[in-house]
C-alpha cells in the first residue's frame, strides 16, 4: 500500500449498519479543522427514496461484495454507495427520463445494438432482484444477503455471466448494478456516495480543484493537495 497524505486508515471501516458510526468518528479525526458537520444517519436508518426493505438488504450486501471493505481503501458501504444508487433510481437515471423508450422492443437483440429493454433501470432493479434472490435460494440455499462472502461472490459471478435465468429485458441488471456501484464510489459526494471523498483520497484524485497551470510536465511529482468537493468540502 502506498502512503497517501490524508488517506484514512483501514481500521476506520466497519461493515453494514455500524458503518455510520465508524464514519462519523473518522470524519471527526480527519477534519479537525473543518467546521462541525452533522453525521449522516447510519445506513440502516437512512430514509430510502426508491428501494423497499428487501431490495435495500440486497443492494447493501451486493455493494459490499462489489467493492468490499477491508484491505486497502474504503469499501462501497464505507462510501455509502447504496444511498447513491437509491437516489439515482428515484431520479432521471432510474426513470430513463432522457432515453428513447418507444416500442417496438426487441430486448433479446444483438447486444452490440445497445440497451433495448422496455423497462427503465429502476424497473429492472425491481424485477431482477427477486429473480436473482430465488436463484440464490435454489442454488445456494438462502437469500443473497444471508450467504457467506465466497458464495455471494460466486452468485454475483453467475449473475455477471448471465447464468441466473433473467429474462432478456432484465439482462442489463448486473451491468447497471456494477456501473452504479462504481459511480457511487467515485462521484461527487453530493450524490450521496463517495462519503467524505474517501474514494478520491484513496486513489489520489483531487476532485473539483481544476487549476493545474504549473503542473504539466512535472516528472514523478505527486500532487500534494487532497480533494475538494463541489460544495467546498475538503478531505
Amino acid at each position, binding site marked *: *500500500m*502506498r502512503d497517501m497524505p490524508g488517506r484514512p486508515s483501514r481500521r476506520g471501516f466497519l461493515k453494514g449498519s455500524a458503518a455510520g458510526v465508524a464514519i462519523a468518528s473518522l470524519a471527526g479525526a480527519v477534519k479537525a479543522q473543518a467546521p462541525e458537520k452533522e453525521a449522516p444517519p447510519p445506513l440502516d436508518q437512512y430514509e430510502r427514496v426508491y428501494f423497499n426493505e428487501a431490495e435495500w438488504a440486497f443492494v447493501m450486501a451486493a455493494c459490499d*461484495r*462489489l*467493492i*468490499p471493505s*477491508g*484491505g*486497502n*481503501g474504503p469499501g462501497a458501504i464505507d462510501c455509502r454507495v447504496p444511498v447513491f444508487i437509491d437516489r439515482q433510481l428515484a431520479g*432521471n*437515471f432510474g426513470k430513463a427520463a*432522457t*432515453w*428513447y*423508450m*418507444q416500442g*417496438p422492443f*426487441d430486448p433479446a437483440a*444483438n*447486444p*452490440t*445494438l*445497445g*440497451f*433495448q429493454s422496455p423497462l427503465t433501470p429502476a424497473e429492472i432493479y425491481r424485477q431482477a432482484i427477486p429473480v436473482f434472490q430465488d436463484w440464490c435460494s435454489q442454488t445456494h440455499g438462502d437469500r443473497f444477503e444471508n450467504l457467506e462472502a465466497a458464495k455471494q*461472490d460466486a452468485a454475483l459471478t453467475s449473475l*455477471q455471466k448471465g447464468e441466473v435465468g433473467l429474462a432478456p429485458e432484465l439482462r442489463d441488471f448486473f451491468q447497471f448494478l*456494477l456501473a452504479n456501484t*462504481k*459511480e457511487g464510489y*467515485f*462521484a*461527487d459526494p453530493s*450524490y450521496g456516495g463517495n462519503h467524505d471523498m474517501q*474514494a*478520491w483520497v*484513496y*486513489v*489520489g*484524485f*483531487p*476532485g*473539483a*480543484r*481544476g*487549476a*493545474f*497551470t504549473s*503542473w*504539466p*510536465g*512535472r*516528472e*514523478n*511529482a*505527486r*500532487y500534494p493537495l487532497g480533494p*475538494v468537493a*463541489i460544495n467546498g468540502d475538503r478531505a
Partner: protein
Amino acid sequence: MATRTDPKKDVVIIGLGWTGAIMGMELANEGLEILALERGDDRSTVPDFQYPNIFDELKYAVRYDLMQKPVNSTLTVRHNTAETALPYRHLGSFLPGDGVGGAGVHWNGQNWRPQAVEYRLRSYVEETFGADIIPENMQLQDWGVTAEELEPHMTKFESVAGIAGKAGNINGEIQEGGNPFEAPRSAEYPMPPLKNTWDSELFAEAARKMGYHPFPRPAANASIQYTNDYGMQLGPCNYCGYCERFGCNNYSKSSPQVCILDALKRKPNFSYMTRSEVLKIEKAADGKTATGVTYFDEKTGEEVFQPADLVLVCAYSLHNVHLLLLSEIGEPYNPDTGEGVVGRNYSYQMTGGTSLWFRDKVFNPFVGTGAGGMSIDDFSMSQIDFGKEGFIGGSYITAGHTGGRPIQQMALPPGTPAWGAGWKEAVGEWYGHSLSIGSHGSNMAYRDTCLDLDPTYKDRHGRPLMRMTFDWKDNDIRMTQFMKARIEEIAETLNPDAMASGYKGDGAQYDVRPYQSTHNVGGAIMGTDPKTSAINRYLQSWDCHNVWVMGASAFPQNIQYNPTGAVGGLAYWALEALRKDYLPNPRPLM
C-alpha cells in the same frame, strides 16, 4: 401544418453550433437579416459552465447533461441491410450536441486539417497505386476541392478558434518541431503549443528515438491570452482535466460561445430562438428552391413557418441528413441499387489504443487538457504504401492525458477483475500510473454504409427516425491492426510493467455501447457530380440552390483526423462563394 407564420428573414440558420455561429457572424457582417433556430437551451460560460459546478463527472460525462436527449431525438442502427435496425436508446458510441454551441461546447478541441491527399483520395489512389487496389463496394470519392483552395479558409477558422500548435510546413518549408507531413500552411498557428504532460513527453521521446517526427497536437485549448478576429478573448487554459464532455469554465476552450456568439448576439440584424426544433425545410412549388423552414416552438407549443431566402443547414452531420431526407431535398440513397445521393457514404472513425502501466511513475492524469499532447504522422495517409500494406487509410498516433476522472478514465492493467477486492486493490495501486498511446484513423465509406429513414420508429413529432447502416470492414480493420503493430513497437521501448491493446480485430462488429467518437461523417457529401454527391463543391444543394449544408456530412469518407478543423474551414470556403458569387446572383453555382 404550421399554426403561425412569422415575418420573412433573409437567412434562416438551422442549429447554432460551430457552423451555425460562423455562418451567422459572417452573413450578419454582410448586413443580412438572420434568424438562427436552435432546438436546445441557451448556454453561456456563466452560469452554465461555471466553477466548480461544471466539475461534475457524473452529471456531465456519465449522464450526458449537455448532450442530445434521445427521448427528443435519436436514430436507429443496424449492421447491414438485412438486419432490423433498433433505436439508439441511450447515448454511448457518439454524443451529439444539444443547445447553443452544439457539440462545440463539450468537444476536446483537437483541431486538425486533413492531409492534401485526403481531399482527392480516389484520384490519389488511382494515380499512385492503380484503381484495382480499391476493394469492391468501397465508394472512394474526391471532395471536389483541394488543400490549396481551402488553405486560407482553414487559416481563418484557426484564427477565429485560436488554435495552439506548431506549424510543420509553412509555404512548403519544413519547420523544426512541427508536423512535416501536413499540407503547406500560410502561417504559424495563432498560439504556441500547450505545455506537455509527462506521459506525452515520454511518448515523444520514444518516437523520436525510433526516427519518427513528434509534434504537438493542434489544440483549441488556449495556451496564452488571445483576442480573435471578432474581438473575442480567450484566457490561458488551466489544465483542469474536465474538457471533453464539459463546457470550459475558464474561457479557454474554443467554443462558439467563447469565440463568436457574444459578439454575434450584439448585432441588431441577428436573432436566435432556442427550444425551436426545425422539422422540415419547405420547398417552393417548382421544387428548385426552399421557401423557409417549419419549426416547433416549444415555448408556445406551435408549429411555425419561418420564410427565408436562404436556408443554412447547420444541425450537425447526422441531423443535416435527417432533415434533407424528411424534406425530400435530393434523391434518397438506395444501397441496393447504389443510386441516389442523400444518405450515401456514411462513415465513422477507426480508433484504437495501447495502454501502458508503470509501477514507479506518477502521472497526475487529472492535469490535462482536451487536446494537448504529442502526435506523430509518420503512418498517415500520405506516408503509407496502400498497395503494399493492403489497405487504404492511415492514422495519427498520439499520447497525452485529457483528464483523470475516476469513473470513466480509470485504466487498469490486463487481468484486473471487474469488481471485488482485486478491483479495489488495483484502483489504489494503478490510478495515475498509466499512459495511453492512441491511433486515430480514417474510415472509408462503402456501398452499404448509409443513412435513410427508418420504416418503424418515430420521433416525438411523429417523424420517422433516421436509420444508420454501418459496420467495420476488412480494409479498415487491416489499417487499425497495422497501427497496433507500430504502436506496440513504440510502447515496448518504454518498458512498462504492464501493457494492453484495444483495436478492432477480424470480425469486429460495430458496437453502439462504448464511446468511440462523435465523428459521424458523410450522408450529404460534397462533390462535382450530382449523381454521386448531395451538395456541390461549395456545399450548395444540387437540388435547391438556396439550401446550403455545412458540417462533416459533406465528407465523402472519413479523414484520419478529428473533423472540426475541416468543418470550420469548409464553412468559410462556402461563405466566400456565398458572398462573392451567390448573393449578388442567386442560382446554382455549378
